């Protein structure tokens, strides 16, 4: 039987505010346990929450970034349950009136096509602390530094049909939040985590199958693998005559499998009700308009502009706009060298290749955009040829010079375009290679094309790679063919 996979994602994005959503404690990562948990975060008796304006602004910016409705009124609710990392015994969240209404995200697929994934809503909530399971005399330690960090939970519709689409969606969300600068998107530090809802159904069936929710998946790769495993598990289960149970599962990256979270007790009842310590958040039109007017260019717009204004191919535009870091880098290179296509080739070619080989992110590339721009500029104005350019790039990568110009000078890589100088080198090569010259001249026209390579190589070698290869070629042809 043909099976269709149905996936919906709940993405939790940690907003990069300075202070927490309801308190003035710092949100910085990596502090000593409980040193960033203030009275409000600890839920001490008598404390009260006050909402962080930046968390609101960031949430609204996200909403505008996905063309979502921004309701005038949103309300915070309490989600009640007991857990050691939840100090108040409830999480302040938004159940009934979220701050961001329905919107949509465009995702790019590997075949170059795009697809729209609907976002059901996004809401603000506070993060919980962390339980540390090292052994403290048989006890668990609780660190509440993270408690109260603002989260934007982005809930998609079940619009994705493959693990690849899910990953593309997650990448698109990642790109939007990092473009907006509302999150660092650092998945390793937990700034972005997601819960994946997966179900399968026979192809052509309209009704959804029973879904399993995979909790807290924290990398693009794990999302793909967790879905792959889960889909296979569900299909096997059904084909063996079983049934999928609606449950929460955990992805174990080491075993590369999902497994049922031990149900500690019967189904929870969160008893949501409006938080009486917070009032309705009312966003007037002027406020929303102001944020809209000040939105940065987002991935989709950037991609379109790269195509239409810079004349890049759809593929190049897609790759170069895939992350804000990549796009910013590319644009800086382009601005310095003044040639978008050349800049695109270098960023996607030499630079990306080297980054991939060393497993680095473009944000911490050893070659800065200004340096690469300077290098590409010298390629463009033919100060150096392609071969020398690669040498310069390697030197920049290894920190052998502050700029391309400096390295070109130091290594003497400036391209020789002086016809006289090149002619002198050619004459020398011809004089040194009587056998090859004779062979060349005896050869038919169609074979000569191949044979000329030898002479070009010799001349380039003589110039230590700095001669302009096109010039060398043309002049050689003239001289060899003359006799």
């Amino acid at each position, binding site marked *: 039987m043909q099976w269709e996979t149905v996936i919906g994602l709940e993405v939790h994005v940690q907003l990069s505010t300075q202070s927490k959503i309801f308190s003035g404690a710092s949100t910085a990562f990596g502090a000593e346990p409980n040193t960033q948990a203030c*009275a409000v975060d*600890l*839920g*001490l*008796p*008598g*404390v*009260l*929450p*006050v*909402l962080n304006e930046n968390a609101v602004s960031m949430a609204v910016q996200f909403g505008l970034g996905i063309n979502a409705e921004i309701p005038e009124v949103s309300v915070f609710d*309490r989600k*009640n349950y*007991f857990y*050691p990392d939840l*100090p*108040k*015994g*409830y999480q302040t969240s938004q159940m009934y009136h979220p701050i961001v209404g329905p919107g949509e995200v465009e995702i790019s697929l590997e075949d170059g096509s795009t697809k729209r994934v609907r976002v059901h809503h996004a809401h603000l909530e506070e993060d919980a602390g962390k339980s540390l399971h090292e052994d403290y005399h048989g006890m668990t330690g*609780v660190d509440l530094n993270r408690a109260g960090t603002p989260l934007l939970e982005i809930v998609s519709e079940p619009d994705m049909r493959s693990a690849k689409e899910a990953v593309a969606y997650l990448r698109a969300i990642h790109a939007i939040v990092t473009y907006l600068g509302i999150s660092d998107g650092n998945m390793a530090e937990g700034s972005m985590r997601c819960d994946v809802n997966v179900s399968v159904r026979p192809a052509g069936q309209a009704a959804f199958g029973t879904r399993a929710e995979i909790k807290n998946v924290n990398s693009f790769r794990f999302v793909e693998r967790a879905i792959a495993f889960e889909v296979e598990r569900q299909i096997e289960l059904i084909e063996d005559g079983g049934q999928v149970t609606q449950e929460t599962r955990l992805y174990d990256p080491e075993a590369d499998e999902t497994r049922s979270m031990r149900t500690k*007790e019967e189904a929870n*009842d969160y*008893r*949501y*009700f409006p938080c*009486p*310590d*917070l*009032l309705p958040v009312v966003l007037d039109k002027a406020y929303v308009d102001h944020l809209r007017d000040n939105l940065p260019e987002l991935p989709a717009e950037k991609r379109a502009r790269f195509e239409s204004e810079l004349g890049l191919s759809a593929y190049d535009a897609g790759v170069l706009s895939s992350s804000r870091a990549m796009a910013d880098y590319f644009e800086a290179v382009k601005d310095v060298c003044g040639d978008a296509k050349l800049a695109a080739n270098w960023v996607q070619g030499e630079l990306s290749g080297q980054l991939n080989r060393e497993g680095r992110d473009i944000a911490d590339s050893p070659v800065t955009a200004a340096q690469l721009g300077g290098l590409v500029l010298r390629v463009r104005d033919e100060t150096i040829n392609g071969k020398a350019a690669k040498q310069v790039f390697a030197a920049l990568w290894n920190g052998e010079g502050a700029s391309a110009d400096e390295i070109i000078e130091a290594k003497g890589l400036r391209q020789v375009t002086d016809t006289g100088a090149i002619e002198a080198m050619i004459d020398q090569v011809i004089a040194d290679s009587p056998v090859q010259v004779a062979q060349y001249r005896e050869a038919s026209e169609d074979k000569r094309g191949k044979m000329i390579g030898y002479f070009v190589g010799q001349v380039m070698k003589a110039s230590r790679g700095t001669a302009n290869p096109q010039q060398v070629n043309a002049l050689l042809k003239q001289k060899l063919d003359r006799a």
Partner: protein
Amino acid sequence: MHDKTLSELATALAAGEFSSRELTEHYLERIQRLDGELNSFITVTAEQALASADAADAARARGNVGALNGLPLALKDLFCTRGVRTSCGSRMLDNFESPYDATVVERLAAAGALSLGKTNMDEFAMGSSNENSYYGPVKNPWDLAAVPGGSSGGSAAAVAAGLVPAALGTDTGGSIRQPAAFCGITGLKPTYGRVSRYGMVAYASSLDQAGPMAYSAEDCALLLEAIAGHDPRDSTSVARGVPNYRDELSASLSGLRIGLPREYFGEGLDPGVESAIREAIKVYEGLGASVQEVSLPHTDLAIPAYYVIAPAEASSNLSRFDGVRFGHRCENPSDLIDLYKRSRAEGFGTEVKRRILMGTHTLSEGFFDAYYKKAQQVRRLIRQDFLDAFEEVDVLMGPAAPTPAFDLGAKKDPLSMYLQDVYTIAINLAGIPGISVPAGFVGRRPTGLQILGPHFSEQHLLNVAHQFQQATDWHRRRPAFGEENS
């Protein structure tokens, strides 16, 4: 000294008749001598009080002091006080020394006031008799067989007995006004949002409000001025200027339109209380006020709505008491669930558990719409009753409680206790201010006149109450308790 009102003490201190240290020592001596019987304090902070008194005296010598400089007060034991036990009348917090001060505590200190200690209360402010305290019941100084009312029973009894000239209480469904009435003092519940709730241990967040309890309306005005105003730490505190509440105390009441809610004079009202209230109304007529009957048609729904909303909020507010970061923790918990269940079972008393269970049940799946949402809708109707009434009249008057103080142990059934709040509870649901002023006695037990006004009408309410106190001396009466040996 202890027969003087807070305002008179302020004048006497300013005139140098005695020092703050002398005054403080006098009250501390009375507490030591008399509170064993009354049980109005949970914690007495004598040392800090004397140190603060000395500081206040020194400040006065330098000049330029706050309005409450050197005046001793007491705080209901749910205001967080740094370094001092803040118990909420509960075993759960018996070991809890707050690491921070409530905003109102900071404000009183900034005005120069000092605290003699923390007063007894119904556990987590849940009760109308002060019998639900881990620290035992408080007695009514007018009649030791009677309750002082609740939940701010300790504050009311301490003031009435002259153990402190004024105190702060909190009022979620009548917890300032009813004990003020039972103990023959003046108690003001301000408009919701007028006084910061930061550092006040929450019972029902949308209803809780702190307020002054003292001998006179003038005293309440003095205190309210110090504690009212916007607090950036409390989202529900209102950013609105604080008037000088004493400025208008002497304004004439000529032309004042008084409304008597029909529903507040019906079945269940003690005839003695009713006649005291009717006498008080006559005093107002003598002051130039006109009286008309009005209706608050949804009055009988206030108790049902309250006993859905308040327990629901409480069930969530009290979840933080889990034995992890503060408060009572059971011995040797076998696992997490055991830690929670035993710590909370041991830490909370019967009434608190009852309301947590009630609130948990009404919020749970399948019941939320029928109870919680419905109660919130009815809450709007109740508020509208008041808004409509204030279109016709300036203030509403009626009894603060249906009976005078009842006997200790008389109300064993929770429902009959809940009905005590029949005239006070709707006011919290509507968020309007209300004041209870002494209005006579039924036998030995005092009774209180409740005066209600529109949102943020405290200045006017205090004026209306003060004029009554200029014409009567009920607020000057003191119980015989403790006087035989003094």
